[in-house]
């Protein structure tokens, strides 16, 4: 099933076009990484998905229903963090979550305290006391925002830069949390500038550049092997002579070899007396993919 589907989604603010003809396609069970440089339109797109900003043109469907027309039935199944968390500074985190829960429809009072505690526990704020949010650290606020998004066990999580301000352990914790939730059936759309995080968590990626979606594909296929082997040897000249015709580049003691079969290349080198320190298939990093996609677009 399509969890998020947009067609020709466009938003203009006066003269600038923040989002330009975007056709997102997020499927059930995806962890979708939403990438793009500062100002490329990620947050604006997310706001349109959630009915906060109205598109200039184009259509949005979330969980099979049109947005923003059906926000009353769609939004209860969505948890979101949009451009940073927010809470009234004078309330405690616990009270904020309870009040937010009470403010919306379909929230029963029984079990509310339990739900609040569960959500806080999930994001590592289980031990938080009655101090007001005003005194929270940046990472604590971020965790509180995540807890608010998780409160009602949503089918879809939309997280705009969720790891902002988290320490390395916190980032790892949130990664585990997202993967656990995803394994339990939650679809996730996450925007981030931490490409290594996206690479570790996401199944699909979309890249925005100046408001246009310049890439949308499975992570495995864009970050797959490049068909080259990387050979690290103290004797690159001998190795290059042995593998003549297949060497793409020599960079100091590293050779790039056009070959799929690492085992036979290794056998050939070792058999000829070339010491091999390491040998592995080259993979495109997400960074390369993103920079490539955006720079190609810039030329076009």
């Amino acid at each position, binding site marked *: 099933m399509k969890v998020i589907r947009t067609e020709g989604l466009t938003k203009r603010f006066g003269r600038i076009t923040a989002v330009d003809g975007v056709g997102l396609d997020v499927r059930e069970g995806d962890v979708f990484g939403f990438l793009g440089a500062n100002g490329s339109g990620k947050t604006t797109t997310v706001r349109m998905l959630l009915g906060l900003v109205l598109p200039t043109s184009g259509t949005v469907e979330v969980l099979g229903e049109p947005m923003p027309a059906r926000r009353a039935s769609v939004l209860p199944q969505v948890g979101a963090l949009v451009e940073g968390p927010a809470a009234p500074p004078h309330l405690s985190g616990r009270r904020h979550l309870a009040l937010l829960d009470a*403010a919306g429809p379909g929230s029963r009072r029984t079990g509310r305290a339990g739900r609040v505690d569960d959500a806080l526990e999930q994001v590592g704020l289980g031990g938080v006391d009655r101090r007001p949010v005003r005194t929270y650290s940046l990472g604590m606020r971020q965790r509180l925002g995540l807890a608010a998004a998780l409160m009602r066990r949503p089918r879809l999580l939309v997280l705009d830069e969720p790891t902002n301000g988290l320490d390395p352990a916190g980032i790892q914790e949130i990664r585990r949390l997202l993967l656990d939730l995803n394994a339990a059936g939650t679809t996730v759309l996450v925007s981030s500038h931490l490409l290594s995080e996206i690479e570790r968590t996401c199944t699909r990626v979309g890249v925005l550049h100046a408001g246009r979606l310049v890439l949308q594909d499975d992570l495995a296929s864009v970050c797959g092997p490049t068909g080259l082997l990387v050979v690290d040897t103290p004797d690159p000249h001998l190795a290059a002579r042995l593998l003549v015709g297949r060497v793409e580049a020599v960079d100091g003691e590293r050779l790039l070899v056009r070959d799929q079969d690492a085992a036979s290349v290794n056998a050939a080198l070792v058999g000829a007396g070339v010491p091999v320190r390491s040998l592995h298939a080259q993979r495109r990093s997400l960074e390369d993919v993103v920079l490539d996609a955006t720079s190609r677009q810039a030329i076009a």
Partner: protein
Amino acid sequence: MIRVELVSLLRSRRTWATIALVDALPVIVAVLLAVTDLGPRPGTGPAFLSAVLTDGTLYPLAALAIVLPLFLPIAVAVFAGEAIAGEAQQGTLRYLLLRPVGRTHLLIAKLVGVMAFVVLTVLVVAATAYLLGIGLLGHQSVTASAPGTASVSGTSLSTPELVARTFAALGYAMLCMLGVASVALFASTLVRSPLAAAMGALALLVGSTLLLTLDAADPLKPYLLTRYWLAFVDLFRDPILWHDLVRGVLLQLGYVVVFLGAAWANFATKDISD
């Protein structure tokens, strides 16, 4: 959402601090009057103030006349100006809408919250004033146990009549504040800063009060927000002078319909991008 709004209002220290501030002025006036026994001459000063020295039960009305022109509407403008713009500035507006709280529902909840504040303030002011009135002022009517209270026209009103008319006056004052609240709520949907929203509503208030003193503004006067605010005094004439009261009610309802309508039209389709 309405319940959450009311709970937050009642639990907020700021609500009670504001009420205490608004309430302080009539208290000070009552103490001064009681100590000096120097009332304004009849026909000068705030309405009813000359009468309260002889009849303390009129003091709630005098207190109303003291806070209604300036103090109370400023507080209402600040509270209503903050309603939407405050949430936007704090960043919580988007999370309320995502919860989801419907946009119309949110506006209604905010208006109910502001009006709850108004009702609470008016009742607190009236109650304190009543206690002060019978405790500190109006020695004559208490000691002489006169059969009724003198109306503004000089005839006497029975106690039930006085009570009914006092509550009608309180209701009228609340309606006037609903007018201010509507203007400020509209401003609150328009701008990002709660302060700017309150200032917008206050500008209309001060402008209206100022223009009322200007002869050249005569053709405008029947439409100015504050034109009939003190018409509740006419409830205490014998017979009641309905003319200004009716106009006042219609005018306030006009402001409420226009500005709430504008607030709704603006907010329902607004891009939430703070």
